[in-house]
């Protein structure tokens, strides 16, 4: 367990790096701003670069941070829910439902401003389908939830392939960016931030219960947890987090898998430390990734999902390999 002083230092450090990442994201790009230019732009939204910082870069960086935090938190919850360290936010089909709805919207030419709402309703349909099919009678079964979720996800994937095949060529690129995960048009809706903060507080309140739940359902019941209720709450919270993230930025991969893992290695498995650490690290990781995505092949912009996967895959393999050596 981390001593309190060390824990506070880590949180402070992560908050500072988060701020630094957003500062970097708002100063780098097609026009690189120096320290003084950046500062004056920040103080005066009406100045030469104020518009650039306040209307373009800051909303995008804030959206990136929020989405990263949403996905990481959701990943932590999914891993406890399924008692599987390899679970990620998309495993139970929430993102599939969101993607299908958003792509359907693009195919029939719905205005881009309506896509997040459409994606959210698609995710909600998926959550309710999985919830009602997996719930049933009898004891909680993680396996049944996992299978229901994975099969539902496959169903969505098939429908998405169908849309991609039948859809007009003109919208293919937009669809592809959505599927890979992209922040180009992302703006931070305040309701997303509200969802993040609310669920984060609930998670912190449940953190000790989740520590116990991670030891197994029977152990958790013996230590006083009404596990069935707790597990459904965790499922719903994780799903809402995922749905919110996907509706803003599409299916950004690997953040929700890698970040909880990295943080477990760094801070241990106490969720009271893991939740804040993972949320902040996920946020800053996505801000850095998105800045790379904008600048590495400038003026071309990459979908950020490509960058997180390119960073995430080697990192993940390294972690797996390390874990094997440790055993």
């Amino acid at each position: 367990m981390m001593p309190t002083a060390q824990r506070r230092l880590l949180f402070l450090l992560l908050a500072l790096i988060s701020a630094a990442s957003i500062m970097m994201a708002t100063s780098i790009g097609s026009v690189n701003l120096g320290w003084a230019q950046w500062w004056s732009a920040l103080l005066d939204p009406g100045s030469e670069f104020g518009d650039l910082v306040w209307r373009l870069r800051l909303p995008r960086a804030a959206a990136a941070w929020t989405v990263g935090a949403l996905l990481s938190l959701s990943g932590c919850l999914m891993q406890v829910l399924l008692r599987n360290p390899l679970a990620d936010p998309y495993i139970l089909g929430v993102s599939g439902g969101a993607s299908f709805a958003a792509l359907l919207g693009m195919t029939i030419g719905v205005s881009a401003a309506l896509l997040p709402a459409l994606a959210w309703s698609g995710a909600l349909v998926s959550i309710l389908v999985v919830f009602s099919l997996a719930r049933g009678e009898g004891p909680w079964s993680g396996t049944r939830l996992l299978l229901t979720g994975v099969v539902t996800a496959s169903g969505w994937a098939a429908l998405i392939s169908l849309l991609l095949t039948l859809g007009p060529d003109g919208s293919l690129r937009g669809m592809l960016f959505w599927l890979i995960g992209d922040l180009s048009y992302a703006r931070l809706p305040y309701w997303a931030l509200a969802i993040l903060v609310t669920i984060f507080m609930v998670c912190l309140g449940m953190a000790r219960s989740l520590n116990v739940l991670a030891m197994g359902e029977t152990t958790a019941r013996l230590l006083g947890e009404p596990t069935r209720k707790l597990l459904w709450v965790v499922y719903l919270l994780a799903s809402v987090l995922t749905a919110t993230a996907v509706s803003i930025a599409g299916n950004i991969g690997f953040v929700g898998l890698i970040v909880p893992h990295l943080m477990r290695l760094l801070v241990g498995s106490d969720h009271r430390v893991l939740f804040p650490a993972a949320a902040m690290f996920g946020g800053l990781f996505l801000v850095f990734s998105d800045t790379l995505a904008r600048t590495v092949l400038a003026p071309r912009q990459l979908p950020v999902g490509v960058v997180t996967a390119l960073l995430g895959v080697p990192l993940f393999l390294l972690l797996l390999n390390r874990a094997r050596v440790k055993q």
Partner: protein
Amino acid sequence: MSMLACKNLAVRIAGIRVVDGLDLEIRPGEFWGMLGPNGIGKTTLLKCLAGLDEAASGRVQLESKDIDALPRKLLARHIGMLQQHTVYVFDSSVMQTALTGRHPHLGYWEREGPEDFRKANEALDAVDLAGFAGRSVTGLSGGEARRLAFATLLVQEPDLMLLDEPTNHLDLRHQLRIMQMIREHTDRGRRSAFCALHDINLAARFCSHLLMLFGNGEWCAGQTGEILNESSLERLYGCPVERLESASGPRFHPVPA
């Protein structure tokens, strides 16, 4: 007053009758041992007493209240159980695992205080894991993991300890230590224990009362000195048993046919 009482309890698992019409009272100060052959349903009965599984009929009552009606958190302050197997999926430290025993005693946002750490340290010390506090649980040996699980139960401080083969995986010295600690737990006269065992001689030496499960729902319960003898053991295990007298009481040995 009885701490835990079974009233006309019938327990089934997969069509097997574990017990029928079981009337049993576990009173403060009593150390119960449960004997029976493999697969007879000892674990199932323990789970039923812990409120994890439902009985086919009859009731289990904690201080005259049906345990199904009690919230789990309240139940966990009175009844704790050492499971037969302990598997750790997520890595965690030994200290953090021992501290989970405090979970039922803490509120929503409450953190473990110095008193909780003291209890955890004491328990780890009692099971010879004092130097292990910072170690990872996934690196423990079978016997160490077992002792950690028992330490967690000590930290939980339940009035009634249910234990599923507590001496599994343990060397001779730690088998004795654990049985002694369970007896100390009951010695204060306020608490009790109920434990499934395979070692007749540990049962003979430590348990004040025994429950024997013969299969087909048949059972027999009573004070150890009254019901533990060659004939009941032969009926129980289906093999001849001889009785030897030792300085500390009778010992039983199987006789090869």
